[in-house]
């Protein structure tokens, strides 16, 4: 077995054996924390796909994250219990939403793209909190759906999230190294040149945008299962900023950027929250120092290009 394969198998093995060990040693709290980290790792990786590889700085990624969560909450509220209905419904909805938003936003560039994606996310935020029967600004309870094959306990959710994350990361890895991914990166590097060669830039970007939106919806769906609650915070622009922070922190366009960023940020937040109620001060200082002194993110610190 090659050395590089071990690099993936060892962390995966550790993650697989973690819940029983945590259970035995009374550290179950950390199973939940790791579940949360894996969910955000998925969301951040989806953003990294368009932001890092596609050069599309979407400031509205929370829209899909939140819509995924709200689909679970609203459907279970309306009496739908089967996960086999809820999951496809949420994913299709997020894909359609990303298609709609992307097809308009991708006509703009640069800062204007950042702002118009933000605008659409804000619109969705305000529409969702206006439905008082679905909780309004208080959010909505989201029952865990029925999978039929197994009961979705906290441990089952951990393994489900792990499986989804591994599958999604594998798919993204294949995608960015495929012809499609190469073209996407070519467009990021030089859009007019890619267009001149004959690639339909708009269509490539739109497909990537839809894939990223759907993956973020998948993360949101898991988030609703995790907290059993759909909060308007998931849709808020601060959430988009949070995800973007993870990607930048981890390393933009580095394959492990999203995962590393999510893990680092959430762990730092968790530790600082234990020390002081002013924990955001610490988070802010750390972020500032990283931007000023480690411009390529955590993945960049290891000194090799992930892609």
């Amino acid at each position: 077995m090659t050395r590089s394969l071990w690099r993936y198998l060892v962390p995966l093995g550790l993650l697989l054996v973690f819940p029983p060990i945590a259970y035995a040693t009374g550290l179950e709290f950390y199973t939940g924390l790791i579940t949360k980290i894996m969910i955000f790792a998925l969301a951040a990786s989806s953003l990294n796909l368009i932001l890092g590889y596609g050069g599309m700085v979407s400031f509205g990624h929370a829209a899909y994250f939140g819509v995924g969560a709200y689909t679970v909450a609203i459907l279970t509220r309306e009496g739908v219990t089967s996960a086999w209905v809820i999951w496809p419904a949420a994913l299709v909805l997020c894909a359609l939403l990303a298609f709609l938003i992307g097809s308009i936003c991708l006509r703009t560039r640069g800062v204007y793209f950042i702002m118009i994606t933000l605008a659409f996310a804000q619109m969705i935020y305000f529409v969702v909190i206006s439905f008082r029967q679905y909780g309004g600004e208080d959010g909505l309870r989201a029952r865990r759906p029925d999978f039929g094959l197994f009961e979705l306990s906290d441990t089952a959710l951990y393994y489900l999230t792990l499986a989804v994350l591994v599958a999604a990361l594998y798919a993204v890895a294949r995608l960015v190294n495929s012809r499609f991914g190469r073209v996407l990166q070519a467009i990021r590097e030089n859009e007019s040149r890619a267009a001149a060669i004959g690639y339909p830039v708009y269509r490539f970007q739109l497909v990537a945008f839809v894939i990223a939106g759907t993956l973020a919806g998948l993360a949101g769906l898991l988030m609703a299962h995790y907290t059993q609650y759909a909060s308007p915070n998931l849709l808020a622009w601060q959430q988009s900023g949070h995800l973007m922070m993870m990607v930048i922190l981890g390393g933009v366009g580095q394959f492990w950027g999203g995962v590393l960023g999510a893990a680092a940020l959430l762990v730092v937040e968790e530790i600082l929250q234990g020390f002081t109620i002013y924990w955001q001060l610490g988070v802010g200082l750390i972020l500032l120092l990283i931007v000023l002194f480690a411009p390529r993110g955590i993945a960049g610190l290891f000194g090799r290009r992930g892609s």
Partner: protein
Amino acid sequence: MPPTLFLEQILNGVQFGLMLFLLAAGLTLVFGIMDMINLAHGSLYMIGAYLTATFVGLTGVFWLGVLLAVVGTALIGMLLELTILRQLYKRDHLSQVLATFALILIINEVVRIIWGPQPLLLSAPEGLSGPIEILPGLNYSAFRLTIIVVGLIVAVALLLLVNYTRAGMWLRAGASNREMAQAMGVPIKPLFTLLFGVGAALCAIAGAFLGPILAVQVGMGESILILAFVVIVIGGIGSIKGALVGALLVGIVDTAGRAFLPMLLSQVASPEVASNLGPALASILIYLLMAVVLFLKPQGLFPART
């Protein structure tokens, strides 16, 4: 609908729009000239409001408090530029977003440590707390009227500064082509520091006058920052004229939408639908406006770069 109510809401819109302009003006110049995304701009607005509340409490005189707060915020703004923001000009937009987002977190917590988590009380000066009759049958809050007057004076002063002074000429030159301006001998470094000071002072004025109407609390900067960004994107980044038009447009559309949309909806739909949908539609109206403007004119209404 009585015409006085309509007029009152339009005045409220103009008042809010002018305060948005004060925020957007600094933001659009920083953005246009230095090509720098400064999310911490809203934090200066918050600092301005907190300093005003503190100085008004200390001196007991509203206008003196405002003056001290404006000076104080300008100094803080220049200090930020000299120590941190200056390092970010040459970095990409993403680093700027992350660094200034970090600054928001830091400033919010520092404010919370100094002033505590409770919102501060900042009330309008006593002579201006009542309504005055500006037209027969139309009573309007004297304080809001003062805001309009102050906003207009500052806006005119700023337009004169940008359009008719040497520093203003440098600013406009920088906004349309930074490298060329530099090559022609524009003293960029002190100009940037000064610009940050002016931008921070404008933030403080907006914070001082919106403080008594909205609330002086941690997080007040972020919600208005998004609006200010909407304004400069609609107006065209780097253009003062665009910021003014965009700010008035956003101020009026937002205020009028909140006042009239639920009313209009209740005439065509059931009361339940109207009460649900009205506020939502009113909230998304400005974002809809921005999306339409960007769709039709991807560079905003008055692009500064040609």
